[in-house]
């Protein structure tokens, strides 16, 4: 199951003189969802479980890797998206989507399950799966590494994570070196069904992260100096509109020109982890 799409990079796709990470996440999510619906020969609105409850795609993990960062995408670039999808059983879907121009390529892997909503409480989403569908998506015989790794990290077993050519050491008892509390902006953080949007997690993370790094830099802004080349988000939970999010910066390591940053997002009300985030950022492209 494949989908291709051509896009010209203009202002809606850009932020901070680079490709907008938020736009990229939304576009990747939309293509992942299109791939699922295409493979199940249904529309997202009609996707239901055996008790006729509406199913929502729940992002489990998204991993972006690229040799060059987002600042290498330039206005008016012609970009191509090329996505494929497979499943493991009836509930887990795995897509691989490349987003590239002649200058830079982001390789993106997305993993989702399906959830139903329980009485509108976003903290109590229940797992479910599609019912009565003509499923044409390739069924894998083995759980892909992106899924088995997620499980090992959630169970606090995996000690090292490879992200592209970078290696993160994971200390599950690491005390944060910086914390920041973020109040949700419902107009941009919540999706069409009032859930914390999967594409909001990385931006909330980066907003909080910049508070730390802007204190370290001499006058220049972190957001306009370092850009994402790799990101790995492991999604654990969701939250309601009145929630505040606690950001915990766990590690910030400089390796050559790159920064390796790991962090947690937590619900402030009960301290539950919403997501674990691994990021590599590198300096903005040099403009000739």
């Amino acid at each position, binding site marked *: 199951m494949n989908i291709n799409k051509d896009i010209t990079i203009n202002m809606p796709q850009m932020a901070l003189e680079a490709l907008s990470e938020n736009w990229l996440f939304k576009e990747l999510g939309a293509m992942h969802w299109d791939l699922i619906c295409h493979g199940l020969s249904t529309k997202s609105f009609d996707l239901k479980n055996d008790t006729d409850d509406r199913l929502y795609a729940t992002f489990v993990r998204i991993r972006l890797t690229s040799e060059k960062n987002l600042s290498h995408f330039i206005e008016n670039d012609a970009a191509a998206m090329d996505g494929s999808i497979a499943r493991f*059983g*009836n*509930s887990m879907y795995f897509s691989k989507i490349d987003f590239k121009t002649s200058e830079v390529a982001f390789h993106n892997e997305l993993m989702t*399950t399906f959830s139903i909503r329980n009485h509108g409480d976003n903290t109590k989403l229940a797992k479910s799966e599609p019912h009565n569908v003509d499923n044409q998506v390739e069924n894998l015989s083995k759980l892909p590494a992106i*899924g*088995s790794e997620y*499980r*090992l990290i959630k*169970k606090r077993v995996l000690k090292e994570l490879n992200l592209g050519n970078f290696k993160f050491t994971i200390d599950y008892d690491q005390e944060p070196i910086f914390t920041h509390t973020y109040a949700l902006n419902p107009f941009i953080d919540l999706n069409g069904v009032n859930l914390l949007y999967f594409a909001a997690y990385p931006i909330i993370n980066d907003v909080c992260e910049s508070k730390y790094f802007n204190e370290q830099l001499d006058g220049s802004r972190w957001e306009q100096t370092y850009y994402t080349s790799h990101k790995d988000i492991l999604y654990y939970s969701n939250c309601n509109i009145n929630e505040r999010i606690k950001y915990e910066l766990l590690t910030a390591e400089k390796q050559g020109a790159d920064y390796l940053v790991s962090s947690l997002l937590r619900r402030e009300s009960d301290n539950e982890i919403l997501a674990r985030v691994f990021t590599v950022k590198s300096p903005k492209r040099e403009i000739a």
Partner: protein
Amino acid sequence: MQEKLIEIIQKIRTESGLPEITEFKEEMSLKDDLDIDSISMAQLIAEIDQNFKVDINAAGPVQTFGEILSRLK
């Protein structure tokens, strides 16, 4: 059949970084006693389907080791 099911559960637990279970009882909860989380549950359903050609969730979600056995009979 029971031996194959135990083998599948042990494999999933090992892949999850968990030790093998020494004794299985029918009343054991998949979630609380066998530490089968949502991803492991999806893997269990898929591996049972591959090995036994049975969708153990077809009649609703299973909660215990014994419920899986009864649906495989």
